[in-house]
């Protein structure tokens, strides 16, 4: 689903910070950035490479983004999608923000203005990168799934 509010916010941020290279994946959004570099959709390997090499990862509050940031050990700044604005079919991203947002390296913006402030602050001091995690889920969890497969 499109998320023009985030695209526009980061494009405006890029205009105010010409010294920072900003690249935005806009998906099916209508708003096309005028200041930042942009792409509709990156192949997964390129997406992961971008996360791996960025200074700050800005995204919606989705699990793919969160897990990618944690796996890459990068701070992530997130703007949750809101159902009231037609950005998702429900407000589960607010729930994700509430339940996971306290983890080290995960940062939540309340709105576009807050996003701007936090992006600058996090780039200046990325203190609070996620704790490294293993590539796979907790072995106790996958062991129970294995037991289901083998039962």
């Amino acid at each position: 689903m499109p998320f023009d509010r985030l695209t526009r916010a980061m494009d405006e941020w890029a205009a105010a910070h010409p010294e920072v290279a900003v690249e935005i994946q806009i998906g099916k959004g209508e708003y096309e950035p005028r200041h930042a570099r942009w792409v509709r959709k990156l192949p997964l390997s390129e997406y992961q490479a971008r996360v791996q090499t960025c200074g700050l990862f800005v995204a919606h509050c989705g699990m793919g983004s969160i897990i990618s940031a944690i796996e890459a050990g990068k701070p992530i700044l997130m703007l949750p999608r809101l159902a009231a604005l037609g950005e998702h079919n429900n407000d589960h991203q607010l729930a994700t923000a509430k339940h996971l947002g306290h983890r080290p390296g995960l940062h939540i913006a309340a709105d576009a203005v807050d996003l701007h402030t936090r992006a600058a602050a996090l780039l200046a001091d990325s203190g609070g990168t996620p704790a490294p995690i293993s590539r796979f889920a907790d072995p106790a969890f996958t062991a129970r799934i294995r037991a289901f497969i083998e039962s």
Partner: protein
Amino acid sequence: MGKRVLAIASGGGHFIQLMRLQPAWAGHDVSVATVDPSTAALAGDVPFFTFRDVSRADWWRIPAAALDIARILIAVRPQVIITTGALPGLIAAALGRPFGIRSLWVDSIANSEVMSGSGAQAGRVCAQVVTQWPHLATGKVDHWGSVL
């Protein structure tokens, strides 16, 4: 002798969560199915299939997705389906159930306050439903852990 397993999820976070579960089926005869061909490398050296995506927001795409998923089931002939959602995983479980395929629904960790729409229906067609949040466990829905 390993089991034939189909690990299936739609794109984005659903697929990334599924890939974090890979040790669960290591050594079994697994195939992976999702929507984005560019994610094949993440699945490793296993048979990889793609299907046309569908969600509740574009429910009219259900027939195309169901057709693709049915073809994958015929090709793989799984004994077990593991899915992290969303709607396509529910379709796979529903199509497999009459043929005795046992399905496990792992509700996305994104659903931290209520089960997903598809997850709430999964009990009808899956042998087991699990949530990744302990406070969402009920008599029918277990909590076994989470991908994080």
